[in-house]
């Protein structure tokens, strides 16, 4: 199969997956809560309007929202309307009292926090994990390998909320270097001071997420590097008389990192899951925190949007990994 054919096939599969995900999403948030929890969707999905407005105005707004969200339609039309909304990113309005306004505004307000935290900590832990993995593989069976292997396995087995709790207790309660609730702390500042406050509040969740993610990268990298080290070209590089450092970090690392990247794309969902717990423990107002808060306040429109966006990101990351892999390794295209 040509590269183009491969790409077309992957794109088609991704499209089908997205449609199924959207259907699950519809079922989960537009059907299940009302069947299981017995909530009337019309009452629920239409935002509460301040009683200071006159009744005529309220009725008009309600009707507008109901027809906009399609609650006056039969379920199949509602599904179509819903599919349409996924393309326009119009997810309805926040309900449940914690937030107000359109969900898309809420998302664009909180997404940057998650992108900042997750992106940063992922990059850092990826780099540390890669180097530690290669280092460990190069000293296989020796004390340095064993020590780093066991300690990283220990980190890998730690519940993310436990790491968070311990960091919080040590740094926020005993030493009092960091704020205990990021959101409350950051909201005290404006302007340039705000960005400083963000950095300060981010330190603990960043450290926590980094510690959690290093283990996974390290373990995959170590086994990947162990395999690469048996390859002939590594032997060749050594035979050539290259210095061990060059062999490790130029030949081994570069070749071992490819499978790790694809594994990372697949495990992005798990990384996002880690963010839910970490953001909740530290009160970091990102999408992970709101995944939890939205369910507690029964803000289903917001939950639905976040869930869809997380799925979309995972699907796109998988697609990117597939395409990258197909591009790098022609054998896959079969």
């Amino acid at each position, binding site marked *: 199969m040509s590269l183009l054919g491969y790409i077309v096939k992957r794109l088609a599969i991704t499209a089908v997956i997205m449609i199924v995900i959207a259907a699950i999403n519809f079922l989960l948030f537009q059907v299940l809560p009302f069947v299981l929890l017995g909530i009337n969707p019309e009452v629920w999905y239409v935002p509460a309007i301040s009683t200071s407005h006159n009744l005529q105005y309220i009725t008009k707004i309600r009707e507008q929202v109901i027809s906009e969200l399609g609650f006056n339609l039969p379920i199949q039309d509602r599904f179509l309307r819903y599919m349409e909304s996924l393309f326009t990113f119009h997810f309805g309005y926040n309900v449940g009292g914690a937030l107000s306004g359109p969900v898309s505004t809420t998302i664009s307000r909180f997404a940057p926090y998650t992108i900042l935290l997750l992106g940063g900590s992922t990059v850092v832990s990826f780099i540390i994990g890669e180097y530690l993995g290669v280092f460990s593989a190069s000293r296989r069976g020796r004390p340095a390998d064993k020590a780093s292997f066991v300690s990283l396995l220990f980190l890998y*087995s730690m*519940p993310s*909320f436990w790491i968070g*709790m*311990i960091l919080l207790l040590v740094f926020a309660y005993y030493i009092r270097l960091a704020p*205990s609730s990021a959101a409350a702390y950051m909201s005290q500042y404006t302007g340039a001071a705000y960005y400083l406050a963000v950095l300060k509040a981010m330190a603990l969740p960043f450290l926590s997420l980094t510690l959690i993610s290093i283990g996974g990268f390290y373990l995959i990298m170590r086994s990947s590097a162990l395999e690469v080290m048996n390859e002939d070209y590594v032997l060749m590089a050594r035979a050539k008389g290259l210095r061990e450092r060059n062999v490790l970090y130029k030949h081994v690392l570069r070749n071992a990192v490819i499978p790790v990247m694809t594994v990372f794309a697949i495990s992005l969902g798990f990384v996002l899951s880690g963010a839910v717990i970490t953001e909740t423990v530290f009160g970091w107002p990102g999408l992970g925190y709101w995944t939890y808060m939205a369910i507690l306040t029964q803000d289903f429109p917001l939950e639905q949007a976040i869930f869809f966006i997380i799925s979309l990101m995972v699907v796109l990351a*998988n697609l990117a990994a597939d395409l990258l892999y197909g591009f790098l390794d022609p054998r896959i295209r079969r």
Partner: protein
Amino acid sequence: MPRESALKLLLHNRTGMVGVVIIVFFGLMALLAPYIAGPSPAQTYVTGPWAVPAWATAFPQYWGLPPNLEAAPPSLTQWAGAAGRGAGYEMVQVQPPPALVSGTGYSAPSAYAALISAAVPPGSEDVVYTANYTFNYRYRPPYEFKFGALVEPLSVDNISDFYLRFLLVKPDGQVVHLTSYSVMSSSFEEDISYNNGFRLGNWNVVYLSTTLPDVNLAALGPSGLGMTNTGLKYLDENGNYTLVVQVVALGGSSPGSLKVELAYPFLFVYGRQYGLLGSDNRGRDLWSQFVWGSRISMEVGLLASIFTVIVGMYLGVISGAFGGLVDETLMRIADIFLVIPFLPLAIILVFMITQSAFLAKELYLWLIVLFAVLSWPAVARVIRSQTLTVKERGYVEAARALGAGRGHIISRHILPNIMSLVYANLALNVPGFILTEAALDFLFPGASTVPTWGRMLSKAFDYASSAIYYNFGWWWFIFPGIAIVLLSLSFVLLGYALDEIFNPRLRRR
């Protein structure tokens, strides 16, 4: 590889054996929980709130913390009794209500009561009977203690009321009025904190305790000055205390008489050190919560992993062995499951489960089902690719050439060759489930009342992080966390060891 030699290799694999030992340790703990820690932890106070583990009293900052202490025993024969003016008493054998001993903390049934009969002149206030008990207290003040007595009026004639009065004489001679209970109006004169006067059979039970509702421990300070209603205020010195229980009669308009039985006076000090792991904010035993918590972790981790691997194994083998449309369909379904974000979906579904009383009853069963449904695709993928490689091997092709059917090839060639992967996957899937289960309990501590490690951590965190309490019970934090880490780690170690044993490529040359 024959199974016996695999077992032998496992026995010689040091990391694998460390894993096995830890798993067996927690497995025994889970199985023998009722024998190790008693019946499932009840929501009762076994000691004072925030009690440290008993062994922690070896450290200087915890020296002198009181254990659970029966300061004044409930058997009246050990007390010094005296009748007041115009009254007399005799010790009589009584039958205590059986529910009493277990229900209110009267720890030992006493067969004796004081039967008091007194003539009460009009308009007077007479102490008709006094019981004293002197005890030595040589610890730091407790947060909480409880005391009380049983009283039964046999005949009450022409008197306006009679009281049960509790006094505490401190080492320096100061007399503290703890409370007075009016038997006829069932009311307390001094409100100590948690008061209870109720009827049990023929008896009036007077039962009081200083309580420490959730407080800020740091604000209490060492002396407890300014704090009302805590044990810190009353038993704040070392030395000999005397608890005095008096029956006081209040005369009516004409000469009257009173005949009353008094039994079971007692004072019990709730400890600030208790057991192996101390207590939580309500004085509940943490050790038994810890032991019972191992059950859920083990149960959810193992069962979810078994279901996941069984489903994944069969679907993977079918997908790999049949190929074509079956393979394509199964793998596309797997793709969909693989991109669903696991924890957010679990959070949503657990929330919905907790909203329905019917589903919430079997929360952990649903969790197991949920985990298995969401996790089989990863296993199926691995098994499928292994199946594909096995299928291409020479001997399988030879078997096919000899006319072997698909069933024969699957059962004789493919299944034996994927079993190593199955075993390793069984172990390697467990940690994720244990951690996710703990995380869900952490996020939804109210979803169930079953004690779990995640729930313990969640509650400990609530008290530590809440701005009102700030109480950091390190003994409440450390142990469930370490247990989760150790158990997950042990399964990872076992999984890696199995991987290494069955996968010679990974073995050291």
